[in-house]
């Protein structure tokens, strides 16, 4: 149990799974670095995912059978482990996405009202 208050890492922890799932949904099967690069790119460099965070997350998702990893080769003909969404992963993504959007909508409304 963490005694720390909400931090950037904490936020990331909660949403990293969702981001990974979404990335794989958008781009199709990807290897770890491509996922990290994509997140960095989408966030405009704000989100730099450490290996020690990313790969346990991938493993966690794989253990939960939401994604599946297989060894393959990249376009540059390099060996890499590619992760793809499973059917369960797709369902999970849809579920989380909906919850997130609802939440975001509320926050947005709230913030707009405030201004």
């Amino acid at each position, binding site marked *: 149990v963490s005694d720390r208050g909400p931090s950037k890492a904490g936020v990331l922890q909660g949403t990293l799974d969702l981001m990974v799932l979404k990335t794989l949904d958008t781009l199709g099967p990807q290897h770890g670095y491509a996922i990290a*690069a994509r997140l960095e790119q989408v966030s405009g460099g704000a989100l730099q995912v450490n*290996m*020690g965070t990313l790969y346990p997350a991938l493993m966690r998702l794989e253990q939960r*059978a939401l994604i599946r990893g297989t060894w393959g080769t990249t376009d540059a003909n*390099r060996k890499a482990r590619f992760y793809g969404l499973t059917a*369960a992963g797709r369902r999970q993504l849809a579920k989380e996405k909906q919850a997130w959007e609802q939440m975001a909508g509320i926050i947005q409304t709230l913030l707009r*009202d405030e201004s």
Partner: protein
Amino acid sequence: MRVLREWWQRLRATLVPDRGDEDLEEELRLHLEHVAAEARRRGHDPDEAVRVARLEAGGIAQAMEALRDQRGLLWLEDLGRDVRYGLRVLRRSPAFAAVAILTLALGIGANAAIFHLIDALRLRSLPIANPDELVDIRADGIDGFGVNSGPNGRVTYPLWHEIRTHQRALSGTFAWGNAGLVIGRGADARRAEGLWVSGDFFRVLGLVPARGRLLAPSDDSPACDAGAAVVSYDYWQASLGGRESVVGSTVTIMNNAFTVVGVAPAGFSGLEVGRSFDVALPLCIVVRATPDSQRRDSWWLRVMGRLEPGETLAAADAHVRSLSPGILEATIPDGYSADLLERYKSLRFEAVPAGRGVSRLRQTHSMSLTLLLGLSGLVLLITCANLATLMLARAGAREREIAMRVAMGAPRRRLVSQMLVESLLVAAAGAAAAVPIAVASARALVTFLSTSDNPISLSVVGDWRLIAFVTAAAVLTTLFFGLVPSLRVSLVDPVAAMRQTSRGLTVDRHRARLRRGFVAGQIAVSLVLVVSAALFVRSFRNLSAVDLGFDPNGLIVASFFDMGGFAPPERRPAFQQEVTSAIRSTPGVVAVAASMHVPLDGNTWSHFFRLPDVAGDETKVARFAYISPGYFETMRVKVLAGRGFDEHDRTESRRVLLVNDAFVRQHLGGAQAVGSRVRTVAESGYPETTYEIVGVVGSTKYGTLRDEDCFCDAGNDAMPPIAYVPIAQDPNPLPFVHVIARASGSVSTVAAGIRRRFDTIDPGVGVQVAELAPRMGTLLATERAMAWLAGAFGVLAIVLVVVGLYGVIAYLAVSRRPEVGIRLALGCTRAGIVALVLLDSLWLLAAGAAIGLPLAGFVMRGAGTLLFGIAPTDVPTLAIATVVLVAAGSIAGSIPAFRAALLPPMAAIRDEPESMWRTARAAVRRAVRDLTADEATAGDTLASDIAGAIHRAASFPEAVSAALGTLRDRVNAHPVLLLERIGDEYRGSAYAIPANGILINRLTHYPHPLPLTLADLQAWRKWATEHRPGHLAEIEMLDGAGVRIAVPLRTSHEIVGVLLLGSPDSREAFTAAETKLLGGAASIFALLIENARLNERALEQETLRRDLSLAAEVQKRLLPTELPVAEIAEFSAASLPARSIGGDYYDFLDVGGRRLGIALADVSGKGIAAALIMSAVQASLRIMAADRDIPLPRLLANINEFLYRTTPGNKYATFFYALLDGERRQLRYVNAGHNPPMLVRAAGSAAAAPDVHELTVGGAVVGMLPGLTYEEATVDLSTGDVLLAFTDGVTEAHDPADAEFGEDRLKDLLRQVAHLPAVGIAARVSAALKDWIRDAEQFDDLTFIVMKVR
């Protein structure tokens, strides 16, 4: 469905193997390379790029650490933790663990033992090279062609020669036969199992000697002069001391010297399973010594061979078949009739796989063992069902604990695997204990089945096949008894689980149904076992009691065998007479006779014959026996007609015959037997002979006790037709004879005497002396074993059913206790209650029997041939079995039934709400204990605090407020409000917010506690002012109350309430840890509220409400409807119950003699339970007060004892009892913990305020503690005195501002109104109270009595 799919996914995920470290590192390295490449593209030089990459992406070592954590987290740690948890849980319930492990050990052990025997008997391959290639050459239908040496007498010596010469399909053939040998000489002689083997025997089998060499073709040469013998490994070890010098040593076998040339390999005990050999001798020895062995009608060999490599069994079989006509044509025996020879020539040889050896046991015991395996399988099934119900019950008891853990976020996967691991631990322990049980029982069984005539040697030492069987059984049983309960756990809905706390009102019908199903199935299966037990026991009894036709007790059989020293055939009759006379002269022998046949030794001797006087040319068959005169006297068989044999029936005299009664009935059709002729059909050595029947004797058994083919229409337990021929007229005297003697006195002494007599006989003659009666017992070894085992299984089944049924009925009875209590209170008789509960078990028994009877019929139909003298569907047996099972089951079911009926009604109903609390509290505490042991978190300690707080609560509102208080202390926030959903609102004691308001809307979409900072509220206010002015009131309220965080209390489908908390600890916001804590607390509160609602809902149930209102009716009648009339005083009373049924009670009792009893009591608690206790107080009081001379302290002590015994410890009553004596104008009273009644003394002068005395003398409350004593006090009364006795509801009546009415106020009031008549005083007190309470809720009953002395 969704649950299943989720399960499948998880299962599949567990099957994905974990990735190794290298694989993971590789992935990380590649990642770093990518980052470095990217860095290079940005312009860093290669070395720099690697450093940058490491900075940006982190180190491999750290990432590996995190990955290893993640990898190990799920499986390894979980498993270890599950095992630890399982062990802890089992340790916590050692009785359950012991029972479960023991029953499993017995169940699996029994199965494994029988499997082990079947395996040894049928499944194991011989320890020879390539056993699959070994085939047995044999023909069916060989019976009736001369002498057959037993199960291994399948081929004659001439046939063996023909087969060996002509066959082309086998790479090697050999022949072997059994030999009963005597090894040693004189007093050292021992019987031994021998094998006659042809020269190729060991070579074809591919055996390697343990010592020396094995027999070779040169040992089996026509000259037969090698004199070589091979001993088995076991014989070498056991009888020859395992000496190395054995090779080359000399042994005496059958009076001849042999040289031991070698020892057979360890483990090879011959080709017949269950019969091991001691010595193997070359075939040529016996062929040379006994010319009979070469006869074409002497079947004493088995021929086997090894398939040519590449040759199929089918091809070999076809080849052997095609050879048959030629082989048979070349070996036609002489002396047979034409039709018999035709049958001989039509025989066909076949090749049968023999890699698992041959076995006579296989035929005799295979069916019994298969049936036993089936029966023991059923026992295991019942065991599992029993365990499953046990586990279900445990799962049920733990469901609340589990619900709490689910509510606190424990993943269901963990819970299920925990339950499964727990089952697996039980099964593993059971299996471990089962292995020695299995080996021991298998050994015991072999000993049981083995007889001196039929020694069985099976290797039962326990091997990997046994271990594999036990393991498989353990896994299967785990799945069977553990899976259902654990899957149920995965489906536990926390709220639904808590719902079960209101037991009795919402019984968990589903689980009860499941358990009832298990038990009904168990009863059905048990019935099969009980039926089989009854059938086998009766079958065995039938066999034991079967009429033999002769008296076996006191009979001794001395058998003489040829060992090479026998006289030639023409000398044999003389030899018979010699030994017979020798035995006749032995002391103690009263009768003696020689015979070629010993009754019931399994051998039979039949002849075909014709009856020229009766049946013309028809060929018939009957048993024949060659006997000497005195046989019937010795056997104690009556001669019914004509005469017996005597010394005049000699070789040269007329051929005569005796027949038995069965023969007359079967073949002569009851015609005149004496004088008829019998003409035998010619056989080899037995030319056609015409005999004249000279007498008829009583029928007897012949070869076996049962299933003997009598060639007749009668059943298999009928006596066979037998024809007796004088032994002197035997056309073909064989080289053996039995002498049967009847002893008087000690049979064994006489037998020893006979034995001694032949100590010095020719060493070429083997003698065996045995008593007949003990041998009879061994005939029934199989049947006895079956009866014992089936009986044991049957008893075991009954025990298991009794246990299972008792468990289920007890469970149902307990869950029906409140119902039972209400029924009793409403006048249902105890017998009615017993019937009610018993009906449950009777239904189960009926259902079980309905399934079980056809099932038993089906199972036992296949076992019909194992039974004797009883049909598998014997109706009386089925009926008895059913009655026994139902009776046992009913007794099991009636224990809980009687217990339920004997419960006092108030004890049955007593803990209506409290029991829920007790179980819920216990569950919370358990859950907390488990959780804290595993992972102590702030949330858990909060949960345990809350559990502690609600421990003291007596009702839901109290529990909720206690829990709130705990939470308040913990987070140190103010205020802490709980709003509960009621209709369209969430309402608390002071505040309410609309269900469609802004806060609830926000909470609906926000899964966590929602912080409400001042800024948040400000923003809301701004927004609401513009868009939703209707929400302003709610926002103002939240702001006004100082709410800083809102915690939704969710159940599966709605928000049942909201926790609103103000600023914590003078800080503005909650920390993340606190927020998380609140989230955890929310689930507890949600459960509390849900529970409270469900409880209310349950109370509202229609039937219960009817029962309650009826109970209230009963209740009302307990209070006196009229006030007493007495000379000395006038009375008035009032009672305002808080609910429809109150715990207050008052009564006036006319005890006679101008005395009046006045009682006032307040029973703790409220509602129906209190009411029923109150009725107990009333009943006991009325009974005891009837004894007018009883001292008041004694009366109170009695009531105290009665209440203490009949009510739970936390129930009690305050009680005031006074006896008004009109003659003495006195009031004697006892006050048992009641609010002191007030006695207002009539004022001495009008001006002074009247004195108010309190009547306090007495003792403690009644019903709480045993053995209390009380004191009484006496008050003299004078005119105008006023007594006011009241319950605490009066003084503790609250006004809307929560202020108590209080004693002082009451005293003042009393002083003011004391001058009024009793009715007036009562009216004024009532009015004052009503005025005080106004519209506040009345929490307690208000009751008071006024007495004014005239």
